[in-house]
């Protein structure tokens, strides 16, 4: 018999997000959920939260993996030229969801990213998600200001690195980063870049796959999370169908 070998079957395959809103991040929920479980961050920071689809996925994972993390969402919740401005209901919903589910470890900081910088010590953040304004200059600025705050071995996520629209430039900055850093990227869901800061690294199957030098592993991981995204979508659609049937059955 061969050496013991088990299929990778992460917990995201059975997870349903509590917080849903329209977001192109929806295709990365399974990965975001598993990444938190694998990395076990002590400090997690998201720059650009808007409706909270990604941020509350991280928070839900913290709870469901039984982790002792502190999480921070930084946003003005007033929108920018890419999201367009939105009214206060987005902030009200996000705050209500946070208060109801995660207030004991999650803090919403309603301010500019630069204003929040001083609240974090150097090399203190285990997981940083950069999803603010998407021009080349903005993404580069966010990274350069916040990277010193990331702990060695910590991970930085960049959303929309495959998006080619308006004056988005995340893709161009990402292509520069890949030349100089340890990186992996997903092509689906408008692209999600994963960058690891050098230093002592945590061992976990997902982290080993992410930063494997083996091309087959890299392409298999991409395919796996496309599958996981589809599975989550099917579970959500099934839930909607059942809700619709129940409402129809009860005469609504």
């Amino acid at each position, binding site marked *: *018999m*061969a*050496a*013991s*070998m*088990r*299929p*990778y*079957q992460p917990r995201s*395959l059975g997870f349903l997000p509590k917080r849903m809103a329209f977001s192109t991040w929806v295709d990365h929920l399974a990965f975001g959920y598993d990444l938190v479980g694998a990395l076990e961050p002590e400090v997690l920071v998201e720059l650009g939260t808007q409706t909270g689809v990604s941020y509350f996925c991280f928070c839900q994972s913290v709870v469901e993996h039984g982790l002792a993390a502190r999480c921070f969402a930084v946003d003005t919740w007033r929108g920018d030229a890419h999201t367009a401005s939105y009214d206060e209901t987005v902030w009200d919903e996000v705050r209500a969801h946070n208060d109801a589910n995660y207030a004991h470890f999650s803090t919403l900081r309603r301010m500019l990213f630069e204003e929040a910088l001083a609240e974090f010590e150097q090399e203190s953040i285990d997981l940083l998600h950069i999803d603010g304004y998407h021009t080349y200059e903005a993404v580069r600025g966010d990274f350069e200001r916040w990277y010193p705050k990331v702990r060695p071995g910590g991970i930085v996520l960049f959303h929309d690195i495959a998006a080619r629209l308006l004056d988005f430039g995340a893709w161009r900055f990402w292509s520069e980063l890949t030349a100089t850093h340890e990186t992996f990227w997903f092509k689906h869901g408008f692209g999600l870049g994963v960058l690891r800061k050098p230093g002592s690294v945590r061992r976990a*199957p997902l982290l080993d*796959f992410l930063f494997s030098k083996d091309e087959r*592993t890299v392409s*298999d*991981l991409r*395919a*796996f999370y496309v*599958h996981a995204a*589809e*599975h989550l979508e*099917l*579970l959500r*659609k*099934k839930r909607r*169908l059942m809700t619709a049937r129940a409402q129809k059955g009860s005469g609504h």
Partner: protein
Amino acid sequence: MEHLYLPPSLRYFVPLRVEQGTPGAHACFEYDLVAAKRPETVVDLGSGDGTSFSVFCQSMRDHEVDGLAYAIDTWANDEGEGEATRTALNNFLHSNFRGFAYLLKHSSEDALSHFADRSVDLLRIDARRVDRPLLQVLDAWSPKLKAESVVLCAGLSENSDVLATWKGRMPHGLVLRGGGGLGASVHEVASMMGGDFLPLASSNDDADRERWVTFYEHAALHHALRFEVMGHGGALYRKRA
């Protein structure tokens, strides 16, 4: 160790034949098994409506396996519907898998003489449909199996005697849940690798086996969801009359 495993059944498999209102509970396992083993000779004893047999054939076609597949059944015990079932399956095979898929209207015993010793790479037995006790069928067909061939047995969990017989005779391998249960085991493991289908080659202990079983439960759920959520529009799945 954990292995990143995303088999063909979860990459591109869309079952052509969906007879029971949902894809077969073990269709993913059967599809991946054929993709990995690339059998030259497949024998399916107790094919019934051909749900499993059609998966074998589809995987052979999709993966360009240059083999032959035989569906064997008397189609005698189906409340008068046996002949219609056989005809429908025959038409389906003719339309989709022409040239390598055959129906043999025989009992498992009568079919023996049509196969040479050590010639079968994949043998499936549906314990609910064969006319002899499982142990007799296994004993009778054992000489026909090649080394490292794979034996599947459907209907294991519907009868505790059948399950006990299977486990006594085939202590290694997996027993998948759902769909009446499916036993899967490698006959005469010759090499250290134990064959080329990872779920059967690497199942060393109960914990490993459980992980493979739950993985294929996930795969079955995924296809059932696709069928339920997307199938009604007919875009992905089509139910054949």
